C-alpha cells in the first residue's frame, strides 16, 4: 500500500509508516485532513530477471513444431536479441549468426508447466522446507507462493534439462483458497525475484473435494463438499463487499469528503483481484460433477475459472468445459491414489482436446516435470489408438501454447512466432519418443542448458560440495 499525492497537494509523510501497518487505516485517532488517496501497490515484489546473454543463432535442417499447430519439415529458425526473428523453410539469416545443424533433430517452443511446487516443496523434501500449504485456515488467499520459493531447489535445473522454460509455482491444495501463485522463468538464480516472469499476472490456487475436507474435517470444517462450496461462496461474497467498501472510499475521496479508507485485508484483496479479472483462478478439481458445480459458482459470483487442475474426469464434461472456456491441466495417466482420482483414464487429454476444450499437460511432480513431452506423447498415442486423430503439431499446444494462455503470458511466449520470446528447445529427435532428450534449451535466446557441456549445467548451492555435484542428472 502506498500514498500517492492528490491533485491538491503533496504529502508523503505517512509513506513509510504505512508500510508497517498503515497509519491512517488502523488509527483510531481523529482523522487528519486527508489530501492523499490510499491505493494498493500492485507490484510490491517486482521481477529482477535478466536474461542470459544470447548470441544470434540459426538452427537449420530441423523439424519444427511451432506450437500453433504447424509442423515445418526441414526448416530453420533464427533468433536474436532474445526474440524469434524468423522461421520457415527458407529464411534470411545474417552471416554472423551461430549456425547449428539440426539434421534429424526437432525444435519446439519451451515447455511451460502450469502446475509445479518447485521451490515451495523443494528437494531435499525436509519438514523445514515444506512451505507449500498454509494449513491453518481453509481460506488463506492472502499468502503468496513467491514469498516461499527457495531458488536453490535442484529441481529447477532438472526441469530445465527436460525442456521446461517457464512454470507456475502454486501453493498446495489443502485449503479452499490456498494463496497466490507466481510464474517463473526457469533460469535458476539467487532469488525468486531474479526468476520471476516480468508482468505475468498472479494466479489464485483454489481446491475442490477431498483435500480441504480431510484437512479441516476435524479442525472446524469444512467437513463435506457442502462445506467446501459454502466456504467459497461466503468468501466471494465477502470479497464483493470489500470491493464495495473500496469503491465507496474512492467515490467519497473524489467528492472531497475526506473518507477513512477501509482496513486492508490481504485475503479479500486477492479475492477482489479475481473478481476484477486481474488474478487468474487455478482450481484443483478432480470430479466432473464438482467442476460443474464450480462453474456455476463462477457464474453466481461473476468471476472466471481459468483452469481446472488435475481434472481427472474432465473427459466426462468436455462439452461444458468448452462452453465455459475453462482449461483443464491434466496428467496422462495418474489415477487411483484417492477416490476422486478413481475414474482417471488414459484418453482424458485427447478427449478434452477433441471436444474443442483447452487441454494442458501438467506435472505436479518434480520428476514428471522433467519429461512432460513423454506425458504428451502418451496421451497423444493413447488418443490415436482410441480413434482420436490429433497431429503431433496440435498436441504440442498442450505443452506450450495452452499453458501460456492459461498463465496470461501467451503474448510473450508459448509458441514460435516472429517477435515472441526465444524460449526454444532443440531435441535430439522426435520429442514423442522415450529416447529423445533435450539437447539445448534457450530462455529468451540465452542458452540456459546444453547437454553436451557439463561445465554449463546449473548446480544449485545446495548441491555444491556434496556427493554427486556436477554429475549427470
Amino acid at each position, binding site marked *: 500500500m502506498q500514498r500517492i499525492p492528490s491533485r491538491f497537494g503533496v504529502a508523503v509523510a505517512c509513506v513509510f509508516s504505512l508500510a508497517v501497518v498503515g497509519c491512517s487505516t488502523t488509527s483510531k485517532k481523529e482523522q487528519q485532513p486527508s489530501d492523499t488517496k490510499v491505493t494498493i501497490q500492485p507490484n510490491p515484489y517486482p521481477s529482477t530477471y535478466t536474461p542470459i546473454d544470447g548470441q544470434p543463432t540459426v538452427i537449420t535442417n530441423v523439424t519444427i513444431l511451432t506450437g500453433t499447430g504447424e509442423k515445418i519439415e526441414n526448416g530453420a529458425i533464427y533468433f536474436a536479441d532474445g526474440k524469434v526473428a524468423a522461421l520457415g523453410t527458407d529464411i534470411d539469416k545474417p552471416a554472423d549468426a551461430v549456425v547449428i545443424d539440426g539434421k534429424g533433430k526437432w525444435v519446439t517452443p519451451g515447455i511451460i508447466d502450469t502446475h509445479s511446487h518447485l521451490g515451495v516443496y523443494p*528437494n*531435499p*523434501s*525436509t519438514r523445514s522446507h515444506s512451505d507449500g500449504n498454509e494449513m491453518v485456515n481453509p481460506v488463506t488467499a492472502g499468502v503468496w507462493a513467491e514469498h516461499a520459493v527457495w531458488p536453490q531447489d*535442484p*529441481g529447477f535445473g*532438472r526441469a530445465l534439462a527436460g525442456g521446461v522454460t517457464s512454470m507456475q509455482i502454486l501453493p498446495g491444495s489443502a485449503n479452499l483458497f490456498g494463496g497466490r501463485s507466481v510464474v517463473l522463468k526457469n533460469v535458476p538464480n539467487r532469488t525468486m525475484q531474479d526468476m520471476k516472469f516480468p508482468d505475468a499476472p498472479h494466479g489464485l490456487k483454489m481446491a475442490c473435494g*477431498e483435500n480441504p475436507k*480431510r484437512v479441516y474435517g476435524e479442525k472446524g470444517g469444512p467437513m463435506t463438499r457442502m462445506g467446501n462450496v459454502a466456504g467459497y461462496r461466503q468468501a466471494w461474497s465477502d470479497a464483493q463487499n470489500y470491493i464495495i467498501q473500496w469503491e465507496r472510499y474512492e467515490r467519497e475521496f473524489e467528492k472531497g469528503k475526506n473518507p477513512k479508507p477501509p482496513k486492508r485485508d490481504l485475503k479479500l484483496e486477492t479475492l477482489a483481484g479475481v473478481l476484477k479479472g486481474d488474478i487468474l483462478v487455478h482450481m484443483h478439481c478432480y470430479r466432473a460433477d464438482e467442476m460443474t458445480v464450480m462453474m456455476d459458482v463462477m457464474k453466481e459470483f461473476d468471476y472466471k475459472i481459468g483452469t481446472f487442475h488435475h481434472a481427472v474426469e474432465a*473427459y*466426462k464434461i*468436455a*462439452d461444458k468445459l468448452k462452453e465455459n472456456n475453462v482449461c483443464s491441466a491434466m496428467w496422462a*495417466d*495418474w*489415477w*487411483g*491414489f*484417492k*477416490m476422486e482420482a*478413481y*475414474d*482417471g*483414464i*488414459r*484418453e482424458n487429454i485427447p*478427449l478434452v482436446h*477433441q*471436444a474443442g476444450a483447452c487441454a494442458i499437460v501438467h506435472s505436479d511432480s*518434480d*520428476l514428471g516435470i*522433467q*519429461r512432460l513431452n*513423454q506425458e504428451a*506423447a*502418451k496421451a*497423444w*498415442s*493413447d488418443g490415436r*489408438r*482410441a*480413434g482420436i486423430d490429433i497431429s503431433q503439431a496440435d498436441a504440442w499446444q498442450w505443452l506450450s501454447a495452452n499453458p501460456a494462455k492459461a498463465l496470461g503470458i501467451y503474448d510473450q511466449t508459448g509458441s514460435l512466432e516472429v517477435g515472441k520470446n526465444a524460449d526454444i528447445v532443440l531435441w535430439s529427435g522426435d520429442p*514423442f*519418443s*522415450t*529416447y*529423445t*532428450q533435450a539437447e539445448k534449451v534457450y530462455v529468451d535466446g540465452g542458452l540456459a542448458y546444453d547437454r553436451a557441456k557439463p561445465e554449463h549445467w546449473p548446480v544449485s548451492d*545446495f*548441491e555444491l560440495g*556434496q*556427493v*554427486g555435484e556436477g*554429475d*549427470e*542428472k
Partner: protein
Amino acid sequence: MKLMLSLLASAVISTSVWAENIAIIGGKVHTMTQLGTMEKATILIKDGKIAQIDRDLRVPDNYRKIDASGKVITPGFVGALTTLGLVEVSMSAGVVDSSVKKAGVTKTGAALDVSYALNPDSSLVKISRVEGITSAATAISSVDTLFYGQGAVMSLGDDPLLKAHAFMKVDVGSDGAEGEGGSRAALWVALETALEEAASVEGKLNAQDDWHGMNSRADVAALKKVLSGKMPLFMQADRAADIRQVIAFKKRHPDIKVVLVHGVEAWRVAKQLAANNIPVIIDPEFNLPGGFDQLGATLANAARLEKAGVMVAIGMDTHNIRLAAQHAGNAVANGLSHEAGLASLTSAPAKILGMQDTIGSISQGKRADIVIWSGDPLEVTQAAEQVFVNGEPIKMESRQTKLRDRYLSSQKASHSQPTQYLRP
C-alpha cells in the same frame, strides 16, 4: 464356450487345462533367455505353458494361429515390487491391506503374510494386465514394525497366488531408522538381534513353549526362512554408507539371499554389489536429492549398475506399475542397454523372486505369460495389443477402457442422453 468354462470353473477344475492351443506366429520375440531376440519366430502354447519356440516351426493342426508379423513379443512383465492385490484406492477409502498398524500376532513384523490378502477382483489387476503386466511381487508398504512381513508373487490372472512367502522386506535407511528409535545405531542392532534370536531357536516353537523374545513365535518361523535362504531379504537403502552396511550384512550372513531395494546411490558401490552378487530393484527416474540419503541421485544409476555387472530390476509402483516400461525406457535413454532394460522388467525380477523357472522368459516349459506389443515396449507411444496370462488371451478390457468407451460414444452421440444408460 464361455458358459462351459464358467461351469467347469465352478467344479474346481483349472480352466487352463481346457484352454485352446495357440500358435503366435511371425513376431520379433525377445525370449529373455540365451537365445536372445528371434525374428519371425513361432511360439506354441499348450495347456497354459510354452510348448516350443523356434523359427520355421510347423504348427500342428489343433492350434489357433495368431499372426504377430511386425509385432514385438516379450514375456509378460513382472512388477518388481508393488502392493497389487492389496489396495484399491490408497487414501480415505476403506481397508488397505498393504498398510499394517498394530497386530498382536507380530512383534517385529516378520510374520505378516500378504498371501491371505490378495484380491484378484481389484480393478488394478485388469488395468495393469491390459498393459502387459502379468505378475508382480506384492508386499506390505507401511508398517509400525522392523520388518514389512512376507511378500508374495501374484499372477494378474484369475488365480492370483503364484508364490507365498516369496520374500521379506526390511528398511535399513532413514525410514527404517525412524521406526527403531530414530537412529541406525538402534536399527541395525535390532535387525541383527531379531535374526540371531530366530537362529537360536531349534526347530519350531510350540504354543506351550515359554517364549519372551523380541520376535513373536510367528515372527521366528518367518525369519527362519530368511536365515536358510528360502526367502530372499529385500533390504531398502539409498545412501552409499547404508548400502555398504547391506554388503557387510551379506558377508556376515552368506546364506541369506540379499536384494537391495530403492538404491538411489547404488551406483557408487556398484562393484561391491556385483562382487557380492546382490541384485537391485530401483526406480531409475529418481534423480533428485529427496533427502540427505539421496544426494548422489542420478538418471545414470541403472546404466552404471549394469556396467559393473549388477542385475537390475525396475518396477516399483502399484496403480501405475504399467509405467515400469517407461521407467526402463528412460534408463535406456540414459545409458542402460536395451536388453538390460527389457530384462529389468522380466527375467531380472523373476530371478530375484526365485521364479525364473516359471515366469520372466519365453522358453519351453515356462508359464505362457506373453505380450504382443505394437512396437518397442519401452517406447511411450507403443502399447500392448494382446496379453496372454497362463496361456489364455485375456480380454483387453478394464474399468478404464469401459469408461473411455462410454464417453467416446457420448461425445459422438448427436443427441444427449443420460450417460448412465450408455453401454460401452
